[in-house]
């Protein structure tokens, strides 16, 4: 896999396959701490310790079709090559949290990639679980120890709120999907722009 966003989509699918109705995805790009964190929490069926251990083994799957070497072991490997790691917290009947960290500026870290496309692919699934999404970007000041130009930006939404407004229309209704595609692309694009801002042109909140 060449983008972390594709791994994220795969891990989100695990939550769906585990019967989750609520999923939370949090992405934090923390420049001061030089860390990228991806956290995916679901209220699906959960795993016992033995299943967690086996889930991190690339030759284990509870499915019967061929395994193409994605899933948790591959994400764990991607994290470990980039100065981070993957941790699973889970209990049967209580859901699962998969937390992955990376060195933000590590040369072997895969790019985050197209998160908007990942979110769209997840949300347009038939009976997609509710998603609480938070993508936060923290930039250091200029110079690094000067808080003046430090910024914190966030793109966040909750599909429960979106669904409430839609009064029963599905997210994959053509008109809704079109809006959603633009909404997600725009939210992610605004976060990316932070990187390219001139210190003087910043309008984000100071940290």
């Amino acid at each position, binding site marked *: 896999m060449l983008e972390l966003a594709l791994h994220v989509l795969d891990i989100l699918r695990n939550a769906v396959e585990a019967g989750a109705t609520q999923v939370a995805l949090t992405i934090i790009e923390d420049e001061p701490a030089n860390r990228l964190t991806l956290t995916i929490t679901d209220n699906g069926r959960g795993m016992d310790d033995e299943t967690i251990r086996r889930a991190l083994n690339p030759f284990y799957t509870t499915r019967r079709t061929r395994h193409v070497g994605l899933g948790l072991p591959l994400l764990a490997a991607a994290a470990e090559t980039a100065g981070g790691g993957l941790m699973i917290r889970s209990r049967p009947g209580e859901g699962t949290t998969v937390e992955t960290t990376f060195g933000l500026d590590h040369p072997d870290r895969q790019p985050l990639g197209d998160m908007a*496309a990942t979110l*769209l692919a997840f949300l347009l*699934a038939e009976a997609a679980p509710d998603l609480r999404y938070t993508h936060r970007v923290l930039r250091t000041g200029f110079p690094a120890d000067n808080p003046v130009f430090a910024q914190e930006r966030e793109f966040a939404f909750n599909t429960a709120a979106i669904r409430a*407004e839609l009064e029963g229309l599905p997210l994959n209704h053509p*008109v809704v999907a*079109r809006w959603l595609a633009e909404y997600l692309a*725009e939210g992610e694009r605004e976060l990316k722009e932070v990187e390219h801002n001139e210190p003087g042109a910043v309008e*984000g909140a100071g940290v």
Partner: protein
Amino acid sequence: MPKLKSLDDLKRVREEAQQSLKTRLDTGTTIIVGMGTCGIAAGARDTMHAILTELAARNIDAHVTTVGCIGQCVKEPLVDIEQAGQPRITYGNVKPEMVSRLIEEHLINNRPIEEWVVGRLESNVASTNVAPTV
């Protein structure tokens, strides 16, 4: 943080959708993209994105949705097109650059692209009066 798009749009989106619902139900088209691990690895996310972009550009109304792994991993990305009263047709190895022709031929000219078809499922409501394709 000014947003061009915000949840405030949703009321308008809902009204537009509700208005168009009547006309859309008779010509209902659903496009289903396989989005299991094999599909994702083969590029299904970007194929789906290309489909949405193409539909928007041509102003075609169709539902686009995803399913998990359906066990035909080597043919991923798999795209099913289901239209009222027509057999459900499965296309295999659909790359983003194939999407434009697929939409044009199948949805606009109503001619499935036979060389890309990997499966066909008669729709159970209309299996007796389905016109054979080609």
